[in-house]
């Protein structure tokens, strides 16, 4: 009877380990499938400009003294 219990326990332990491995394996596969479904969307970029022209006569104007 004691031997029978030992065999039963061994079978249960093996079943437990295999079930746990199965869960981990299948969840990994499922997550890989889910992550593959994520859409890769390309970023977009665009340009704008600000500009002006400073006349040469700007040079040398003294500040705040009326020139």
């Amino acid at each position, binding site marked *: 009877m004691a031997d029978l*219990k030992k065999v*039963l*326990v061994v079978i*249960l332990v093996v*079943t*437990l380990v295999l*079930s*746990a491995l*199965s*869960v981990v394996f*299948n*969840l990994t*596969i*499922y997550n890989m*499938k889910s992550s593959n479904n994520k*859409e890769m*969307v*390309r*970023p*977009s*970029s*665009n*340009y*704008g*400009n*600000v*500009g*002006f*022209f*400073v*006349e*040469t*006569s*700007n*040079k*040398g*104007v*003294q*500040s*705040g*003294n*009326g*020139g």
Partner: protein
Amino acid sequence: MADSNSKAVTVFAVFVFIISLFSVGVFYLSAKTLFSTISGYATSVGEANLTVESVVTINFTTARINWGSGRVNDGFSSAGLNTFATNNVTNGNWSLQNAGGLRIENLGNVNVTLNLSGTKTAASMIGGTSPGYRWNVTSFESGACRNSSGGTGALQTDFFYVVNTSTTLFCNYFQFLDDRDVVRIDFNLTIPSDSFTGTLGDTITAVAFAA
């Protein structure tokens, strides 16, 4: 003693049974996913399938701002240029040719992040004594620019910040809906009387990623 051993084995057996059931459930999910993608899997169920692609596209609908040619008025240490509709030049004789700032529209079908950068600082673009080069991002259409929680707080908007040459995030959610998909960038420049001369300017780069 034997009785307690039997109880322990029974409890263990029940635990293993539960784990096994969970394993079967996970296997079912995994197998269902697999069978739906394997060719040769026959089914009598009809299916109409379409995929709507996500597209990220932003565009400067106003891409150029130009104040033309001018200089600091005699007797003033600097002139101020901005992109507002009125009073956009002070102490100078420039003339703004297109008021209203740069405008960016989200033309895609997803909300995006809006990131901006310039290529120059005030010193490298304008030169002279105490030049200024600042920008101000606002939602041209109400609600266009949103933060990470969908609100408008803690955004670098509605205030003139020094233009940054490194990419700066302005909108966590730049929306795509037609009535709220335009953002405006205004500029405020200070041109000292001893600034560089000739053609001066900068290029503003906007980059958007799916939010």
